[in-house]
């Protein structure tokens, strides 16, 4: 098996693991970690695509490699924003749960 195939499949599994984490983790920080796992899975697939495109004396297609650099930095910005939001939420309310939502009391007020 070639490296792109191995890591392509690894990428698919990473996305799967990340999705599982996003669904089941109750803690938002863990959801954020899971999101980063999905992200790195997607990036790894792009890396495999780049490696498959090796040609013209280059070890990989440079266009997807450049996209990867942009993508990783964007994912980092997202993480930084989410962490800041998480910490502010914690400072403000002392908890970070996403479950209690602005639910509009379905049982109250019917006439």
């Amino acid at each position, binding site marked *: 098996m070639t490296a792109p195939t191995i890591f392509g499949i690894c990428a*698919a599994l990473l996305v799967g693991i990340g999705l599982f984490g996003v669904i089941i983790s109750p803690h938002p920080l863990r959801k954020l970690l899971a999101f980063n796992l999905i992200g790195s899975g997607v990036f790894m697939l792009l*890396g495999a695509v780049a490696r498959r495109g090796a040609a013209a004396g280059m070890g990989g297609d440079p266009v997807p490699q450049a996209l990867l650099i942009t993508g990783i930095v964007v994912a980092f910005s997202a993480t930084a924003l989410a962490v800041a939001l998480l910490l502010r939420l914690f400072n403000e309310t002392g908890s970070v749960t996403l479950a209690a939502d602005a639910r509009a009391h379905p049982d109250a007020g019917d006439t």
Partner: protein
Amino acid sequence: MIAALNIGVAALVLALALFTIVARESFAACVGFLAYGLLLTLVWVQLQGLDVALIEGAVGGGLTGVLVIGAAVRLRSTQAAADAARLGMPARMLAVLLSGGVAAAMAACVLALPDPAPTLAPQVSASMAATGVANPVTAVLLAFRAMDTLLEAIVLVLALIGVWSLAPDRVWGGRPALGYDVDPDGILAYVARILPPIGIVAGIYIFWAGADHPGGKFQGATILAAMWLLAMRAGLTDAPPVDRKWLRLALVAGPAAFFAIGLAGTVTAGAFLAYPDGYAKVLILAIEWALLPSLALTLFLLMAGAPQRMSAP
């Protein structure tokens, strides 16, 4: 042999990823994630993406890892509530089923990708002479797809504004939190004195090499930001208050220079973000030099977080 090595690396990556999800404590999961990020750099080396390996190690593993570990420490008290809200078995099985389905579909797609693979490498190689740089990734980032890089610089500034907007009103214009109590004579302060000179040299070297070899402004800027962060965490320097004029100007200087050089291209070379013949390399280097301090500052401030205290008078 190489295939076996790759499979081994892939298995380790997957095992760490799984640990990150199933670990009981958030702190342990974050440490696992940091190790995972570092391990990924090996994957990038195996995939012949040295530029990507550098950025993954610096940003994907390093900065993100530090960020989430810091958050996990501060959020320790929320662990119990999260443990109580665990999903039941049927829901977990459903999650396994669905995410497994998506992963299987994706793996099938990987195997169905066309052979020979489509690639832009020959086109990059044919057009690279016009840009004057020898690192193809830099040529893509600053010539062929310069728009993405310009937008990426804006993304970082915007994320920083988003982080700042989360400050409580009373400390607007103040400084980010210091973080820890540190011993001014301790080992951390010692390292924070001797490491930054080395780190600054290394960061600028990686940046400077980026025109022709793997490396570049993001990788370099990350190292510079990390050095500053180290000095701040060791109590040697402080983060600047967010309302300083010089700070604001330094933040926008890089993207603004990028804008200006791009717009100049409409006059001198007939298109936004085009470079006139013979000046491409000079202008690309000018953009990179302008971006480096802005990027380092933005990354540092993103790591430092929202303002939390008023500056000491």
